[in-house]
């Protein structure tokens, strides 16, 4: 049951992420990206990582993608304003894409089907256990990453205040 659900959702993830690239309209791309993130949330639920699932839901679908959509709506992208690409860039793109395909085929040929992962502790993704892990053995990396976020926030505030300082 769970394996079938996994294959169904995984197929959806791949289809939606392909649609992100192939959609002509950037707004549609973002909407497909939102759907892709939603399928990721389902994957997390299937792995019994409920906290990660709901955080992915709130942060990626609810906040970051809203900002993406927000910016794209302000940009007013049209076919007329799109910069035309020179043939040289197109040729370079084809060569690069070809290299990527060759690499992918090579790695796929050597890949073998991995055995299903069995978690030692299936309840690891629950909020309680995750919190104990994060604030116990992994306290230092956790606090350091929060410092990184703080630095980014200070930087953003500074950038937005630059005009005032110069004036």
């Amino acid at each position: 049951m769970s394996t079938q659900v996994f294959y169904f959702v995984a197929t959806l993830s791949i289809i939606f992420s392909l649609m992100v690239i192939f959609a002509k309209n950037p707004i549609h791309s973002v909407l497909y990206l939102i759907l892709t993130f939603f399928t990721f949330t389902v994957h997390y639920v299937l792995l019994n990582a409920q906290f990660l699932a709901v955080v992915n839901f709130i942060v990626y679908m609810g906040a970051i993608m809203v900002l993406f959509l927000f910016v794209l709506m302000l940009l007013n992208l049209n076919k007329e304003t799109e910069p035309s690409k020179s043939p040289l860039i197109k040729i370079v793109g084809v060569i690069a894409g070809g290299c990527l395909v060759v690499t992918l085929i090579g790695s796929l040929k050597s890949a073998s089907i991995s055995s299903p992962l069995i978690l030692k502790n299936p309840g690891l993704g629950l909020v309680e256990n995750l919190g104990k892990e994060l604030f116990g053995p992994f306290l230092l990396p956790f606090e350091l990453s929060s410092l990184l976020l703080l630095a980014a926030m200070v930087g953003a505030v500074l950038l937005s205040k630059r005009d005032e300082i110069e004036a």
Partner: protein
Amino acid sequence: MDSAFVIEKFILVAVIFGISLVIAMYSTYAERKVAAYLQDRLGPDRAGPFGILQPLADGLKMFMKEEIIPTSSNRFLFIAGPGLALLCACIGTAVIPWGSPVLIAGKTIPLQVSDINVGVLYIFGVVSLGVYGVMIGGWASNNKYSLLSAIRAASQNISYEIAMGLSIIALLLMTNTLSLKEIVDQQHGWRWNVLYQPLGFLIFMVCSFAETNRAPFDLPECETELIGGYHTEYSSMKLGFYLFAEYINMFVSSAVMAALYWGGYNYPGMDSMAVWLGPTWAPLFGTAVFFGKICAFIFFFMWVRWTIPRFRYDQLMNLGWKGLIPLAIANIIITGVVIAIIEKF
């Protein structure tokens, strides 16, 4: 998974869905009656006694109106927008505990669709998703005013989500759980969270006004600046969906406020009532109390709407970023310190 479980949940979902729709329907009526009372008018009184059939008449009118889809709009997203808005409004009810388990025909039935252990975060996720309906509809209309309104809605929701999340963190420090059911059960009798978290409740309430786009924060549909806001181009039942979603959002956020801070289905003297009424009727009475609290909050929403004028956009942003967020952080620090002191001694 046995079929009795599925049937039980299906009936529960259907009943909750029906109740939310009926309450949303009668909220439109109540809104007009409350507005009329506050402005010393009579309000709707023609359809049926005291005008109680007015929502049906309104619904019929919405269905009968001509459906207009602008030619230059994005057809699929134009239709998807209101649908998404209504869907996001409705799914929030899934984790709200409507009452303590009821004994019906020798079977104990929990009055909650799903008691997931991240219930509070789920509500939060649904709230943050709610803005997509407005954004997609506003953008797909291909109208400058609709687009401006959609952008306003997005920035307003994101800004107030931060303060809302921070105000919940202080509450979670006290409750030690993310399950809504456990949070409500901890408030047995008189121990309502609002008595311990008055500041947190105030911040949460102001934020839910902003998240539901209700006055005084209804900037996305500010008529003086934006004609009709994000639903300028909408007609017929698609417009009805947007208006309806707002009332369902109001109902759900009232329920969340009542459950998180005002004790949910708990009330003083509930233990003696449980003995007196028995295991079937006592929980149902608790549910009635819960709905009483929800209705009180819905009335409060309307009271505020017809009392306080709309904010200006910069005032809204200043209040959110410079007022509520620092207050919420101070609230977290105070709560943390107090809890640490209590645990120490």
